């Protein structure tokens, strides 16, 4: 029974963290992608080193400050590693591919949290900012109030608007990352901006920060 439990833990449980993955040196980029597809640990480590900052940035900008962010970054890379054998692009396309996975993961999390809130009849509350880092009180307040408004937008509109506003992602790239057409993303963004402006008008502090809604 003990042996079976140990085996089950090995297969299904959270594995022990151990070993060191040294920086890999690949002769060329094609070799790197091949190694990634072949599930080589050094290539996976290299993928994380190259792109974890951008993935964390996208997740943070879509979700706002979140204690689960490190876990979410890992989740994105675990999904990427699982899907690597099916990746058919070059190294240039890796970042866009990872961003797409990150957006998909963020969207899933937003929806899941909304369902939980509805299920437990929890009132929508502004997100807590538990890791202030080097930020001032004013900065923390600005972020908290802005993401409280994003939280009130429909999921697709929230994702599209945060990518456009906070991440400054080009329109075509937003459409590709969200897996919709250019005209669809234009319509989504138009609706999102209108809602956002209406809600900002109701928040005096944000209205001041955005210069009173001047064009």
């Amino acid at each position, binding site marked *: 029974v003990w042996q079976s439990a140990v085996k089950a833990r*090995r*297969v*299904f*449980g*959270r*594995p*022990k*963290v*151990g*070993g*060191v*993955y040294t920086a890999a040196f690949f002769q060329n980029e094609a070799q790197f992608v091949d190694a990634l597809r072949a*599930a080589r*640990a050094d290539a*996976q*480590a290299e993928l*994380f*080193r190259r792109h*974890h900052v951008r993935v*964390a940035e996208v997740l*943070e*900008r879509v979700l*706002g*400050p979140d204690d689960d962010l*490190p876990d979410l*970054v*890992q989740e994105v*890379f*675990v999904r990427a*590693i*699982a899907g690597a054998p099916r990746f058919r692009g070059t190294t240039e396309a890796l970042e866009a591919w990872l961003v797409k996975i990150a957006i998909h993961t963020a969207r899933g999390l937003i929806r899941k949290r909304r369902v939980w809130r509805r299920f437990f009849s929890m009132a929508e509350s502004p997100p807590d*900012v538990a*890791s*202030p*880092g*080097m*930020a*001032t009180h004013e*900065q*923390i307040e*600005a*972020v908290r109030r*802005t993401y409280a408004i994003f939280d009130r937008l429909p999921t697709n509109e929230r994702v599209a608007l945060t990518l*456009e*506003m*906070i991440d*400054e992602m080009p329109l075509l790239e937003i459409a590709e990352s969200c897996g919709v057409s250019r005209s669809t993303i234009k319509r989504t963004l138009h609706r999102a*901006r209108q809602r*956002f*402006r209406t809600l*900002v008008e109701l928040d005096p502090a*944000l209205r001041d*920060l*955005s*210069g*009173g*809604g*001047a*064009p």
Partner: protein
Amino acid sequence: VNSGESQLAKIVRESLRAMRPERPVEPAIREVIERGRAARSRRRVLAWGAKGMTFAAAAAAALVLYGPFGSKIQFTVGPEEDLGIENSFIGSELTAATPLHFSDGTAIDLLPGTRARVASLGRRGANLNLETGHLHADVVHKRMADWSIGAGPYTVRVIGTEFDVFWNPDSEELEVDVRRGLVKVTGPALTDDQSVAARQRLTVAARERNATLSPFDPDARVEAPAEPAPAEPAEHAEPNASAHESSELASPWVALAKRGEYQKALDAVQRTGFDAVMQSSSASELLRLSDVARMGGQPARAAEILHVTRRRFPRTDAASVAAYTLGVTAFDQAGSYAEAAKWFGVYLRERPSGPLAAEAMGRLMEAYDRLGRRDKAEATARKYLSLYPNGAHKDVANRLTSR
């Protein structure tokens, strides 16, 4: 995005950057790789589990469909619904049909004067051998149903349909009328499997090697002829037939027999005197009288009449039919397989290509098998398969030859 919103976005971007704590990369890398490995192992286990479950489900489905589960179909005979026995002879009366009801819902009516037997029962159907006469079948359509009707050298394969089969072994004529569904017929004068669809009639004359497929109106069919085909052997070879036809002595019991009143017919013969009747009757009347005696519950008397038939009309068709009937009586009613084998052998020597040759050879093979004479059973089975590859006894023959 207007300038105010851009300004707000810039503030938020800078704030997020300021709020972001520094985290070491290497531990995160290790965790990602380990989590990736665990996820891969989990997927592999789940994939094998799914494959295993698919295989188990397929195996279970195959076992249910083809496995040794479920019982054979059962059937009842007659309006009293007596439990039918596999491979036993069933003769309908001369005036009334005999219904057979099968446990899968299939109903087969043996019309008056018909002789048949349920040669084998399976889990998905049965094989019925029509020796002579007319049957009406309403086979319930089921997936993988396996029904067949053997008529002399012909086999009618059925999935689910309503149809009639007429078989006259004397003239070797077959008629199949399909009311609904589709049947397939194999046998002499037919190329491969002859399909007969709804509202079609297949008529085959084996001797002329002639087969015709024509339209058939199911509503136009009148009752089957009340005159029974079985007990009417060919009389062209009977030497003294004309002298004995329609004798005054035979008349009263023949009329009673035609009405199905066997006991009264036997009483009438008794009053006249059996010996007198047997000496004065024609060959066809004697064969009918033996049927009456057998159906009237006097098998010994039936056998005696058949022996008389053979003595009075030697080397005729009637004598050979009597030999065959003696074999059937010994096989089905007395369980005397040695006696049965003897008489089937006699028939085959006298009429090697006669209308009852296939059935006689099949029964001879089965009699040898039941006697435990493996060599003879196997040799007969080989001969049977070479002459009648689609005959009603082919399953038994295949079993014997593969042993």
